[in-house]
């Protein structure tokens, strides 16, 4: 990095030069208690706020937003920050590392293991909409399907793995994106193919589900 660039540097910025994130909120118990602790320990925030330069002497918070909320509550005038590269993919990476954004995987190419891990992550969330979905089965069926032409996640609803349109399918958007490598099959052919493959898979899926359930029992 050039000596004239602030990217990656730990800098001490006036709070008033930083625009906080919109829509961030944290439980007031956590904010006020952390603020009291920050004040009591001398006001040096050891975990920095992540910012990007937003103009001359202007910065925008892009990660570790809790730190900003706490610093403001504590009445700090200045805050330790790290200046992040403003390129969108770098900001995204910083937010993923700060656990403020869920990383997405390319479902067009993802392996069964990756799909399973992603579904498991969703299923383990406290208020998961994936209740009643067997993630092992769903991952296996998605992995088997030809995903090269998928423009969106709708074909998953036809795999008979209890992932239906609405909340369930929307939840998947949190962890998957698609980068199709093949054109969609022609309509007639595709509907025929889909029906056939869906019915075939239906049979095999109910079989394998039984097996899984049996194993479990």
């Amino acid at each position: 990095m050039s000596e004239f660039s602030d990217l990656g540097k730990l800098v001490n910025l006036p709070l008033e030069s930083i625009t906080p994130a919109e829509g961030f909120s944290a439980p007031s118990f956590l904010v006020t208690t952390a603020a009291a602790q920050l004040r009591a320990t001398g006001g040096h925030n050891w975990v920095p706020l992540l910012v990007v330069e937003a103009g001359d002497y202007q910065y925008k918070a892009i990660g570790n937003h809790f730190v900003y909320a706490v610093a403001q509550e504590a009445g700090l005038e200045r805050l330790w920050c790290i200046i992040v590269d403003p390129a969108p993919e770098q900001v995204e990476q910083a937010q993923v590392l700060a656990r403020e954004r869920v990383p997405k995987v390319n479902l067009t190419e993802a392996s069964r293991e990756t799909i399973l891990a992603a579904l498991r992550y969703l299923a383990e969330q406290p208020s998961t909409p994936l209740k009643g979905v067997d993630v092992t089965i769903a991952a296996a069926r998605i992995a088997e399907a030809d995903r090269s032409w998928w423009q969106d996640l709708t074909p998953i609803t036809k795999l008979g793995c209890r992932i239906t349109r609405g909340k369930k399918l929307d939840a998947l958007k949190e962890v998957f994106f698609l980068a199709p490598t093949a054109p969609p099959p022609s309509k007639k052919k595709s509907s025929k193919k889909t029906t056939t493959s869906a019915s075939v898979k239906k049979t095999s899926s109910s079989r394998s589900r039984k097996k899984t359930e049996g194993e479990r029992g």
Partner: protein
Amino acid sequence: MSSAISLREQLERISPDEKVEQVVVQDFAKPLLHKLGFESLEITPEFQTGRGEVDFAARKNTQHEDIFYNSKKNPYLLLEVKSRAVELSEGSFAYKGAADQIKRYLLGEHCKSARWGIITNANHIQLWRRHGKVVHPATANLAIKPDNVENIVHDLRNKIENYERALTICVYNNKGGVGKTTTVINLAGALATKGKKVLAVDFDSQGDLTRSLGATPGEVTLTQCLEDPRIDVHAIVQLYRHKAPKGRVSFFNLIQRDTELVFDLIPRDPELERLTDSQAAAYIQKGARRLRDLLAPLRHEYDYILIDCPTQWLYFSQSGLFAADVVLIPTRPNDLSSLHNAVRVITKFIPETAKSRQDGGPIALPIFFNGVSSKQQNPTKLANEEIENLIKQEKNIDLTQYFWPHFKKGNEDKRVFKMPDYAAIPSNIFARIPATFRDKRILEYYQSLAAEYFIDE
């Protein structure tokens, strides 16, 4: 006429490999001048600069009788046009030629009023600025395309219409003991005696410049200004004043201003020392780019801003170079390391700074020999031999112009400006007065330095 059509459209009309210069002149150069704010009667083609003929000169008509198209006097801007077949990208042979050409034209005897020069071939464009004897890039050499040409020309017009009064000079060599502070003090003094408004900035935490002038920081300090962009920089500018002693009238005949010799100073404060520590430097927003912003309002108020900074390529010197239009590099002819370090400044630190600045600057001025022994015979012989080696060794940049500015093919003039050793003293230590204000010969030397590099008389 053409102003109704956008520059974008004009540019699209020209074939990508157009070989005829006249097409670029008609379809791009003329509309460009209009977009830069010049009417037809404010433009003269084939203008005689006194050092060759430039394609166009332009200047605003101020009175009815003073039509530039007719009078062809006092141009403000010169424009040199090439065809698209001429490769004008940075570093190309033709680019160097065109850059030399615009510099030469801008310094022509009929161009004393000229402030700006442009070179373009409708693929690239670069704006140059003239300040006294110095011509330096005012923008990078920009690649123009239909979708960015309007923005680029808008920015050029903005610069052209807001000529900054000051030339900002950083006096720097990566080698210590070459007389940087001495040069800043005495050059500031010499420029002031020529009626120029000068600001000296002590950006060395050791504060030799401030101490030499017997100055002390005021209530608001340079460090505070660096840390808080809301503080008005004028709060830290001080006046250095010196009344001419009686009975030295003949000496002060050299001085155009009255007997009160004045330049301004931004003194160093002790807190500046803290900034050598990276933890403290973290409080300076924009880091080494901050000083340039800090001095920006003053660039409209002074003729010269001189920055003194320490050796070592760290925060202070990086800031000094980043803030500067030009870098003046003192060397010692008996200290070969000072020559080697001058090469590092020219080939490494200045290009690094320019890469980050993205506006073509700063540039190096030719080096000069500081403290040349008046007793020794041929005191610069060894140094000139070393310079010859350094020029041969450097493969990427032609160093000749930075060491022997008068050297030409067929006339190998190896003159280097020399400051004699007795002149290389900063000030009368007890009187806290620049040596230029105490000694006529020293003043004459620094006035010659000013005339050699800066003042066009």
